[in-house]
């Protein structure tokens, strides 16, 4: 069979080229068209998965855009691996934020022979999917899954460039405990791996700080009516309400809470830490506290923000800087290993030190980002504004953090801004000034 196909191919004018390509190394895909002039670039596929349909499809698209930007930039610049010109191809899939669909899509990507995956968005989907990538030996970097379990499975190929809920939860909870000083807090989650995981961490930290936590209430990631739950909570008179869930459900929750005359401070996790909250909850969103793993989108480097805006005509929403970095990390480690072979570049990825759009990235043994910052925001006049950065358990006011970053390392600021550019050309050099 195989021989038949080859012998037939000889009659084609381009056959010589095609065969030469085959002989050198295992090629991922037969080349579709073989024009006579330059040898066709080797196609290397990168996968991105996130929900492109469903209630948080806007966040999924945002993630995909981040990856697309990185891929397009790398292609525009030209990439050569193992002496061959390489064209990166993005295979973008929709997991509908559904674990079942997520694993199917993961298998699909493995079958399509992608060399690396950026995703998934939701922790609940990332965790089951990671097992499939692990089996296939394909590196996976999530730009937004914060559930601790993801990197606790002992998989060597799983990374994330955001913080973990057990860092984020304590951050928002300790901010809440120290600044708002509530006596009683009600905790609600959306019964997803993300929401529940985050809510658990918040509850743990609050209890440790001596705050009374009411029995957990739960909605789902599709709930629109929280009135019954909120009415019950109102009867217990909490000083603060924490919700672990996404903005599409968090918005209505907040609005309904205020409609019922609930006076408590509302605090949300990163999934509901978007400007969409102002649209969804209106004036009720004012004063909302929320946290994001990592640094705020505004704090991502200017070059990334401008490039994103220029390409997609909109501003990045939430995790785009992280998925952008994740894609660049894979590209970067492929360059270092000089090979798109996952087995070869994986060790490089594990020990990489890279200055990305979201700051400096290094991984620990588990594949978590080292020393990830957490940011606390508040809704003020319809905009979410960073008010504090929490790093290694310490609360730093946002202005102080920015000031400190500016004064402490004026030299670092400049290379950081030009990081993606410089890092691609000479990764070692770019990383150095940042270390100071």
């Amino acid at each position: 069979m195989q021989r038949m196909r080859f012998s037939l191919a000889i009659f084609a004018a381009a056959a010589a080229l095609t065969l030469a390509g085959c002989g050198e190394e295992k090629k991922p895909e037969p080349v579709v068209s073989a024009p006579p002039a330059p040898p066709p670039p080797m196609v290397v596929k990168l996968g991105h998965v996130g929900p492109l349909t469903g209630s948080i499809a806007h966040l999924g698209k945002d993630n995909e855009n981040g990856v697309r930007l990185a891929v397009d930039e790398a292609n525009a610049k030209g990439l050569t691996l193992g002496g061959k010109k390489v064209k990166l191809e993005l295979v973008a899939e929709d997991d509908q934020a559904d674990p079942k669909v997520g694993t199917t899509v993961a298998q699909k990507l493995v079958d399509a022979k992608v060399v690396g995956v950026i995703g998934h968005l939701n922790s609940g989907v990332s965790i089951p999917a990671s097992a499939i990538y692990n089996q296939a030996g394909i590196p996976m970097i999530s730009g937004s899954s914060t559930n601790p379990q993801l990197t606790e499975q002992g998989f060597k190929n799983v990374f994330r460039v955001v913080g973990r809920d057990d860092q984020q939860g304590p951050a928002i909870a300790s901010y809440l405990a120290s600044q708002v000083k509530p006596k009683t807090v009600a905790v609600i989650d959306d019964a997803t791996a993300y929401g529940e995981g985050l809510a658990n961490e918040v509850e743990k930290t609050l209890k440790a700080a001596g705050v009374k936590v009411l029995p957990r209430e739960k909605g789902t990631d599709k709930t629109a009516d929280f009135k019954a739950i909120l009415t019950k909570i109102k009867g217990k008179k909490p000083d603060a309400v924490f919700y672990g869930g996404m903005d599409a459900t968090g918005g209505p929750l907040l609005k309904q809470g205020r409609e019922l005359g609930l006076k408590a401070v509302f605090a949300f996790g990163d999934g509901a830490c978007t400007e969409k909250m102002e649209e969804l909850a209106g004036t009720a969103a004012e004063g909302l506290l929320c946290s994001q793993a990592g640094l705020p989108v505004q704090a991502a480097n200017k070059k990334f923000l401008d490039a994103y805006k220029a390409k997609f005509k909109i501003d990045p929403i939430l995790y785009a800087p992280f998925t952008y970095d994740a894609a660049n990390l894979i590209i970067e480690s492929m360059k270092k290993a000089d090979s798109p072979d996952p087995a070869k570049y994986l060790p490089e990825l594990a020990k990489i030190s890279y200055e990305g759009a979201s700051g400096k990235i290094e991984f620990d043994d588990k594949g978590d980002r080292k020393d990830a910052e957490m940011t606390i925001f508040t809704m003020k006049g319809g905009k979410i504004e960073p008010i504090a950065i929490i790093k290694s358990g310490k609360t730093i006011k946002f202005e102080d953090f920015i000031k400190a970053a500016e004064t402490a390392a004026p030299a670092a600021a400049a290379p950081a801004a030009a990081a993606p550019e410089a890092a691609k050309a000479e990764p070692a050099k770019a990383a150095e000034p940042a270390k100071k």
Partner: protein
Amino acid sequence: MDIFLQQIINGLTLGSVYAIVALGYTMVYGIIQLINFAHGELVMIGAMVAFSVINALAGTHLPPVLIVLIGVLAAVPACMLVGYAMERIAYRPLRNAPRLAPLITAIGISIILQHVALLVWSRNPLAFPQIIPFVTFSVGGAIISGVQIAIILISVLMMGALTFMVYRTKLGIAMRATSQNPQVAGLMGIDIDRIISFTFIVGAALAAVAGVMVGTYYGIAHYGMGSLLGMKAFSAAVLGGIGNLAGAMLGGILLGIVEALGAGYIGDLTNNVFGSNYQDVFAFLVLIGVLVFRPSGLLGERVGDRA
């Protein structure tokens, strides 16, 4: 006590919406024994159309109530058209097919409508402009908002109008005749096709109003919002006895109240072994319980299979 009253108000509002949507399921089922799974999507389309209109007019200086009214007036014909087209294109050719065929078609239509909405209105949750001033009234310690009062009143009005139409007008007689025996009704000079189309159109109009109510109440519209709501309303129709108008209304309101009370009290009653995440379980347990003892629903009559 005020908490209990508040939960009843919450449940009543939610239940009114369920009831209105359940009416659409029950009417269609009553007349052609089809569970129109795409009915929930009509609610979504109603909300989406109203969103577009209200959003466009939000900047003008028209009074808010008028803007919402214009939104309703735009959503109703749009949904009527979709409802009519649905019946004409998808269900009518299958009228004499085995019963599974139109059922599967209904599920297909539901998916198609969702994706059309996704293409037209994007995949983002759409925030309804908050134009209606937020007024609240205090009733015995519980808070009821203007929107809630409007939802309950409008629902009651629509239910009344529908009941009047079905039981007191010629068209209603024709509908009931068709539902009892289409062949004989046809022999009596009733245009069956017209009556069935009309039923779909009325159901769609109700769904459109429900869509606008849900949109303004929660302040959010989304292309996937119809399926869960539709499922609940369908359950409400079954609870009340599918095919029975009064049953749909009763079922809807009961389901709403059971859900609200379930979320509010399961935790306290079971000492937090079961939390509010069991509210849906609780609601469906009630449904199953009723169906075990009254398989044809609360108000449904035991009917033999039609010859």
